[in-house]
Structure formats: C-alpha cells, structure tokens
C-alpha cells in the first residue's frame, strides 16, 4: 500500500484522515498515485491537478523522503521507500500567504 499525507483542507474534504493508504499498480509514479487517490476519493478531483490537463495546481507541492518531487516528471518512479510503503508521499499546500 502507498501512504499519502494530505493537507488539512483535502483530508477534511475527503472526510478521511491526514494519512491515507491506497493501492497503486506498478509502476508507482506520481501520476499513478494521484490517479488512484482520485479514484478512491473522487471529491479530490480538480483540487490537486486540473480535471482535463492533469497539470498540478500552482500552489501545491509533492514531497517525499526529504526531497521536493514537485518538478519531477509525473511519470517518473517515486522513491523506493514510498513505493514499498515505508515513507509517505506528502501533498503540501505551498507557503503562499493568505
């Protein structure tokens, strides 16, 4: 199972907990994780990435294993600790005031 940590607004919207576990088929890329996440929690569609273009919303970041993966290719494999469920993928609201 892949562990995903959601920002407060999104786990409340999905009526779940801060950290969720989802089943993701190989290869475990960012795009595959987001697809599985949106499939399990359809109310999150459009809140992390665009409905149509699948582009990340500007003020969201993807962190894992102490690294910023935001600008990696969505098709790239996630780090192994994330792929084997040891470490979570963290979806983070960027520091942007407000």
């Amino acid at each position, binding site marked *: 199972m892949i562990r995903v940590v959601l*920002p*407060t*607004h*999104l786990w409340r*919207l999905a009526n779940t907990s801060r950290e969720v576990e989802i089943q993701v088929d190989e290869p475990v890329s960012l795009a595959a994780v987001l697809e599985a996440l949106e499939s399990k929690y359809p*109310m999150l*569609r*459009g*809140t*992390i990435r665009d*409905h*149509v273009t699948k582009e990340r*919303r500007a*003020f*969201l970041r993807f962190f894992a294993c102490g690294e910023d993966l935001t600008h990696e290719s969505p098709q790239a494999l996630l780090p192994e600790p994330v792929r084997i469920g040891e470490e979570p993928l963290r979806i983070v*609201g*960027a520091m*942007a005031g*407000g």
Partner: protein
Amino acid sequence: MSGVRVLVGTHKGAFILTSDAKRSQWEVSGPHFPGWDIYHIKGSPVNPDRLYASQSSDWFGQVIHRSDDGGKSWSPVSNKFIYEGNPGTHQWYDGTQHPWEFKRVWYLEPSPTDPDTLYAGVEDAALFRSSDGGESWQELAGLREVKGHLWQPGAGGMCLHTILIDPRNSGRMAVAISAAGAFRTDDGGETWRAITKGLRSDYELPDPDADVGHCVHNIAMHPSRPDVLFMQKHWDVMRSDNGGDTWQEVSGNLPSDFGFPIAVHAHEPETIYVVPIKSDSEHFPPEGKLRVYRSRTGGNEWEALTKGLPQENCYVNILRSAMAVDSLDPCGVYFGTTGGQVYASADAGDHWTTIVHELPAVLSVEVQTLP
C-alpha cells in the same frame, strides 16, 4: 413559528445565523468549511433545507457542496466546470487576447421551481447549469458569443456575479458580469444580448455608450415585477422598467453613487437599498459613516439609515453579494462588511443591530425566510 436563516460566506469559512421571527436573538453556527473562501451560499426556494455552497481556494481550486438539512451536514458535488468547445480568448489587462480559464464560482442561483436545478456564475465569466443537484455542470455558451472577445477583467476578476430568473418564465434570465456588463436571455440561455442601453461609463470606457464593457456591480429585482430592474453600477444607480432594454439613472441625492450591493424590499417593490461607498479608489463609506440609503420611490429620492450603524471611523466595504432581505413583515434587511460584521434590521432599515462582530471579511449574505 417562522424564522430566518442568514447564510454568510466569508474569506475563511461559512457561518449560518438563525433566529425566530422577532430577529432579536441569534444562534451562530460555523465556521463551516474553515479556511476556504466562501463566495456564495444559497437555498432552494422550493426546498429551504436544500442549500448549495461555493468554496474557493488559491491552493485547491473550486469545490461545491450541497446540504439537504439546512446546512447541518454537507456533501461535495461536482467541481468540474468545463467551458463548452474551445472557449477562445478575451481581452487581457494589457489589451492582448488571453485564454478563457476557469477560476472559481462566484454565485449560485437555485431554480425557483426545481431544487435539483441551479445556475452557477463563474470567473472567467460564464454561466453554467446543473439539473442534477450539482452532480454535473453544462455551460450556456451562447452568453460568451455576445462579444466575449471584448470582455476584460476588472480589479476583482472577470466574474459573473448576478443571476436573476424571471419567476413568470424561467427561460428569461438576466446576468451581470464585472467589467463586461449585463445580458439577458429570453430562450432559456440559448441566445443572449447585452442589456446596457442607457448606461454611461464616461471615465471607464473610451465609448461611454458601448454595449459591452460597463462595470455592473449588482442587479436586483422584485419577484412581483420582474420587468423592473435596479442596478448598482461602478458609478451610478440605475433603473430599468423593461427588463433591461433601457436604463435611466436614479442616483438622485446619494452622497456617492459608487457602491456594490443593491436590494429591493420584500413587500414594497419601489423601496430599494444601497450602501454608498466613497469612490472607486477609496472603498469605504463617505466620511467614515456607515449609512444604508433607502429610496421609497424607486430611486432618485434617498434617505440615510443610520440608527445602530457606526457613524464615525468606519472604513469597511460592503461587497456586491453581501446584502439581502427576508420576507417577514416588517421586512428584514441584512448586510455584511469586509470588517466581519453582519448587521440586521428587523424594521426595513429604520434600526440596525449587529448579529456578529468579528467574522472574517464577509463575501456574501443570503437570507432564507423559514416557515
């Protein structure tokens, strides 16, 4: 016993204020959706427990929620607003053409006859309809064919912020768009035309009589007389007696005819309310005095309503969707400020009280009169 439910959208969540018909004791519920910009909440006229709410966030985009128990619980519905076909471009601040991009829902208007049908006014300006309680949305794209390529955003964005449905004929609707103007359909949204004849924007437009480009801030209508429309424009308070075909100015003796909201008394179709703001560059009440102005003559002759409102050092703004009336007798009038106060009058504006003092900035106020 009858009562009222005031639906308040703020910069950081929604609040629901309830009272019995005396409107003197209030219960405050909230924040609902804490941290989200709540642009609008509105109830179905057919089923008052059916509410719709628009949440917006710079981080997470748009969400729409629906309630079937008067706001006690909420369920997310579709946030998928996809423009019909290739939406093309509109005018940008620098005069270039800019792609149409969905940003948020400013306004929700439930159908007067069907609780599952509602309209959404969005930024970048367009009108969407749902006939399944918000589970899916379809654009009424004919609106953007009225010179959409010439529309351009105002300071608050290119938003469709007002939707008025003719209670005699649901196929007839008027909408207003910031810095684009006012538009009407008579065929259920298939075709539209600008309804701006008589508006003048001497300082804002190179052609002050242009059919599109006027910065309409808000339009109000009394359901018993849907041909009579009252408009608060950027500058000027206007009136139409023919569904917007032509307009005449009724600013009369107002201390400033700049402002945002306008409302009509529930039982007196010639009684209207505005809140004058000093100017387009100074968004606060003239002289630091918060005054609602009431006209009992459909405009031109205005009286200041001040009892219970701060008359010194008041520098808040009242946004376009932040004033509403109930339909009790006497009529209640409500408005919210960017300073987080919600004021109420249970006697048509003669006296005011503060329901809540320190909410986040108020974006919208709607009122439901409950059986």
